[in-house]
């Protein structure tokens, strides 16, 4: 502008201006602070408030967290240590509970000797995640490991023969092979359905007989050697147990000795602090008395207010019912106040009389302890008034309070109140001089206490170490004795194996005969069928009660004979199978789902839910976009029903109701049911999130893909989903974080997730009353995982931001 003005209207720049650096206040830290902290009056105010609030929060949390006790065997011991450092249980955390129980919080009741298995699975999880999360930095061949990981992890955690995960994986391979062969012959839909059927057939009908056959052939070969080994082992075990128990007893003795030493230290400290306690005992009743007097003083004031308002004694000013009632109410409250005044004053008196030791006793204690170092303490004590001087005026006051009526004048009440206040002032002086003395004593004690405090801390650490050793010994005892029990059980199972196996054909025959005997009554619509085709619903019954009500006793009897025979056959068959499975197992010891708990449970459910719900959610989202009427409506119904019912209801359905729908005798693992429910639940949300992403994609992308001749699945895989998923990343990760945290809901169906374990730990008398420390620990564990997921999502969003529209 100025250029134009100085040079006239026509202007041509002949030299371009060089770059200049910005003014001082416009760069670096100063600029940042000015813009972000002090940009306006409101901003300055908010900055100040925020700093203050952060200070308040940290000032209360940090000393609690960092001044906590790590070594203690129980909450009581925690408090002992805290008290020896002049702290109450509110000032210091009792982290000892975490030190004592962290393994349980992480692993639940998983056998400690097998901890390495979930830990290995957890480490491998990260190896498996690497090619998925950081596809650009990790060789793509690693994907094969990622695909194998689920099977490997399940095998590591649950154990069993090594071929089980391989067989399970082969189900997918079988499906894939069928798909590859058929997709050239039939259409893609038929091929997909048949592939699914092939996989299901493999898992349902081929896999477990094959596994059983392997167990049997390996087991039969091993029979003699295993039996001999077990017999040898059983012979060794009692001695081993005895040795362990003896070691445990030694440890217990060590612990008892260490406890005694610790108690001695505690007593020593109490001895040092005896003067402090004596003063404490002086302060406490006096403070109580002071409070009572204060209340009495307030009551006098209230009474005086009422009397002044009514002129004198409350009396009705008119004959109306309301006036009479009001006067009565006032008179009643005046009477109550008069009574209160008397009782409060006598309460104060009795506090002082009964609880406060004589000052001479205090002096004696002082001479014996603190006063040795600081002579002024004794002077202070002797300078204090005797308790009689505090008590005497109270007696007079009580007498005067006794004579109060509604007729007492305002002036009298005011005089009484003034005297009560005088007594309060005397008490307050007394208390504050006592507190001064206590401060002096604490100061003199501080040096003396340092050594025993340090001693206590180290004794506690030693004690914790001893206790840990003892608990690992007792764990070992438990493990070895359960090994002994199992070995005995297995021996007797082996002894009867041949007999049981031999009895099977006969049992089968019996069942078949009994089955023939059952009276068949096919539905009347089907009676025209030839006899060998006639359906016999009775033969598929599993309970006599399923017979119609008009069934005769004979019919019932025959059915029940058949059912008994069948149950016996099935149970013998199962027991033979179990024995062979144990005998022929090549792999890891099997571990029951009930033993899995703690944060590990949350991780298993969370990771399985996340991994499985994403593909399912994608399919549901595509289904919801589909033009095929039934595919569309089924997906919509699925999403809406799953989403519309609380997760906890689904979990309870999984734990209780599903049993009614499953065939009897099928032992469907509870944890697996929970994983399925959590997966379905999350998939419904993921589907909606991805649908949002699909909707945000311009139709041009679909047309572009179509015009190039890409098939539906190709355009989804290559064009649509990569872009829709990118848009949906924040929503997907949000759902995952929610899913991961919701895994704690399994506590309601009796699984021991971290929250359930916290309850179990509190049920232990040692740790009864601990809340914060346990929940802080659990919260921190969850936070680490959820925060990492959130950060990863941000990283991914940034990485994929290259295409700007």
């Amino acid at each position: 502008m100025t250029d134009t003005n100085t040079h006239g209207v026509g202007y041509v720049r002949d030299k371009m201006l060089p770059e200049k650096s910005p003014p001082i206040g416009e760069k670096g830290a100063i600029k940042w602070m000015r813009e972000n902290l002090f940009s306006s009056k409101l901003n300055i105010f908010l900055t100040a408030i925020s700093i203050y609030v952060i200070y308040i929060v940290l000032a209360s949390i940090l000393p609690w967290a960092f001044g906590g006790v790590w070594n203690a065997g129980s909450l009581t011991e925690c408090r002992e240590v805290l008290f020896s450092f002049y702290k109450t249980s509110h000032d210091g955390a009792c982290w000892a509970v975490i030190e004592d129980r962290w393994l349980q919080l992480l692993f639940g009741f998983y056998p400690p000797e097998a901890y390495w298995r979930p830990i290995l699975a957890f480490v491998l999880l990260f190896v498996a995640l690497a090619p998925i999360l950081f596809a650009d930095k990790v060789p793509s061949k690693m994907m094969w490991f990622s695909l194998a990981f689920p099977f490997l992890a399940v095998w590591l955690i649950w154990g069993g023969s090594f071929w089980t995960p391989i067989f399970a994986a082969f189900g997918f391979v079988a499906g894939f092979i069928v798909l590859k062969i058929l997709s050239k012959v039939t259409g893609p839909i038929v091929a997909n359905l048949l592939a699914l059927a092939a996989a299901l057939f493999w898992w349902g009908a081929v896999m477990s007989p094959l596994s059983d056959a392997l167990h049997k052939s390996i087991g039969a070969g091993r029979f003699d050697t295993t039996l001999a080994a077990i017999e040898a082992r059983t012979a060794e075990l009692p001695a081993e147990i005895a040795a362990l128990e003896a070691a445990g007893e030694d440890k217990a003795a060590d612990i008892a000795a260490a406890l005694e030493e610790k108690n001695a230290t505690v007593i020593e400290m109490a001895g040092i602090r005896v003067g402090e306690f004596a003063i404490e005992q002086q302060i406490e009743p006096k403070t109580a008395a002071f409070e009572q007097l204060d209340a009495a003083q307030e009551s006098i004031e209230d009474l005086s207010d009422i009397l002044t308002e009514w002129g004198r004694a409350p009396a009705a000013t008119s004959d109306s019912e309301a006036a009479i009632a009001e006067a009565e109410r006032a008179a009643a409250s005046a009477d109550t106040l008069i009574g209160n005044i008397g009782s409060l004053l006598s309460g104060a008196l009795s506090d002082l009389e009964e609880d406060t030791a004589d000052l001479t006793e205090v002096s004696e204690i002082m001479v014996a302890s603190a006063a040795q170092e600081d002579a002024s303490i004794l002077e202070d004590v002797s300078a204090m008034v005797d308790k009689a001087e505090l008590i005497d005026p109270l007696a007079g006051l009580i007498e005067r309070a006794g004579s109060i009526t509604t007729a007492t004048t305002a002036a009298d009440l005011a005089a009484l109140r003034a005297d009560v206040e005088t007594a309060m002032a005397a008490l307050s002086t007394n208390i504050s001089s006592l507190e001064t003395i206590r401060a002096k004593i604490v100061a003199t004690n501080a040096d003396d206490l340092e050594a025993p405090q340090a001693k206590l801390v180290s004794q506690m650490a030693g004690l914790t170490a001893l206790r840990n050793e003892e608990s690992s010994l007792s764990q070992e005892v438990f493990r070895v004795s359960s090994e002994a029990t199992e070995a005995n059980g297995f021996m007797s199972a082996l002894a009867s194996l041949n007999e049981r196996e031999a009895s099977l054909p006969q049992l089968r025959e019996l069942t078949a005969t009994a089955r023939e005997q059952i009276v068949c009554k096919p539905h009347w619509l089907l009676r025209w069928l030839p006899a060998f085709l006639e359906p016999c619903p009775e033969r598929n019954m599993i309970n006599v009660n399923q017979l119609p009500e008009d069934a005769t006793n004979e019919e019932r009897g025959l059915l029940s004979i058949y059912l008994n025979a069948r149950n016996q056959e099935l149970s013998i068959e199962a027991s033979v199978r179990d024995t062979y499975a144990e005998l022929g197992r090549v792999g890891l010891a099997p571990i029951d789902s009930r033993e899995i708990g703690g944060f590990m449970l949350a991780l298993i459910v969370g990771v399985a839910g996340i991994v499985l719900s994403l593909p399912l959610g994608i399919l549901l989202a595509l289904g919801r976009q589909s033009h095929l009427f039934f595919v569309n409506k089924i997906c919509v119904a699925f999403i809406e029903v799953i989403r519309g019912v609380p997760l906890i209801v689904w979990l309870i359905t999984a734990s209780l109701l599903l049993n009614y729908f499953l065939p009897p005798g099928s032992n469907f693992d509870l944890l697996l049911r929970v994983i399925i429910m959590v997966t379905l639940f999350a998939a419904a949300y993921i589907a909606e999130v991805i649908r949002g992403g699909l909707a945000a994609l311009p139709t041009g992308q679909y047309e572009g893909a179509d015009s190039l001749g890409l098939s539906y699945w190709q355009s989804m895989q290559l064009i649509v989903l990569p872009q829709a998923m990118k848009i949906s990343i924040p929503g997907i990760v949000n759902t995952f974080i929610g899913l991961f945290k919701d895994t704690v809901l399994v506590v309601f169906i009796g699984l021991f997730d971290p929250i359930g374990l916290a309850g179990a730990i509190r049920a232990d008398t040692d740790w009864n009353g601990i809340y914060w420390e346990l929940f802080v620990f659990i919260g921190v564990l969850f936070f680490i995982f959820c925060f990492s997921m959130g950060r990863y999502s941000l990283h991914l969003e940034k990485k994929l931001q290259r295409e700007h529209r």
Partner: protein
Amino acid sequence: MSDTTTERAINREAMKVSDEVAIQITDMNKWYGTFHVLRDINLTVNQGERIVVCGPSGSGKSTLIRCINRLEEHQAGTIMVDGTELSSDLKNIDKIRSEVGMCFQHFNLFPHLTILENCTLAPIWVRKTPKKEAEEIAMHFLEKVKIPDQALKYPGQLSGGQQQRVAIARSLCMKPRIMLFDEPTSALDPEMIKEVLDTMIELAEEGMTMICVTHEMGFARQVANRVIFMDAGQIVEQNEPEEFFNNPQSERTQLFLSQILGH
């Protein structure tokens, strides 16, 4: 509209029209719901023909060419492309789509893939060309549209004109026998229109069969061997460009031409 096409002499000699029929549309009708968009369209396009379709907006020009590769479904009549009839048979549709290239007004490049990946995607997945060979083909066509140095960039980093040329190269990578252009220059700045039209002219000189919906009348005059004027879902007039522009027969065509050439 002024002539924005190239100043160089156009080699019309090379633009030979063969007798072979590329597209045969017979009595084709299309409705959007109850709205009759295309009415009794009859059109035969020979191999090597360059046809420009023009007309007011809403006249059905885009819908017509979108029917040719089944981005829109027609409800009556037949469309034969290269001897294959367009029906609801998915195999025929995929076959025709891989023979017919298409360029859109808004390019419809895939923003999450690089230029090279955009060009090799369909050859690799539809034609099952080996990746290396597909990349060589892609580089060949990118050189042809004069942007080989942008191959590793993402579409968002390119100008509109460059993006449209990539879109043309992407279609060419499938070695189509027919190219459809749906207002390829309408979303471009005037400076960029020329580079796209130049590319299209080169393509025409190589004998590509082209159907082009456009308002670039200069291009029509220079390149087209037939201009079709559509209004209200029907073909109102078609003629050789000289005849069409200098001596339009129908009143509707005269009005349209006076409006777009009048300033």
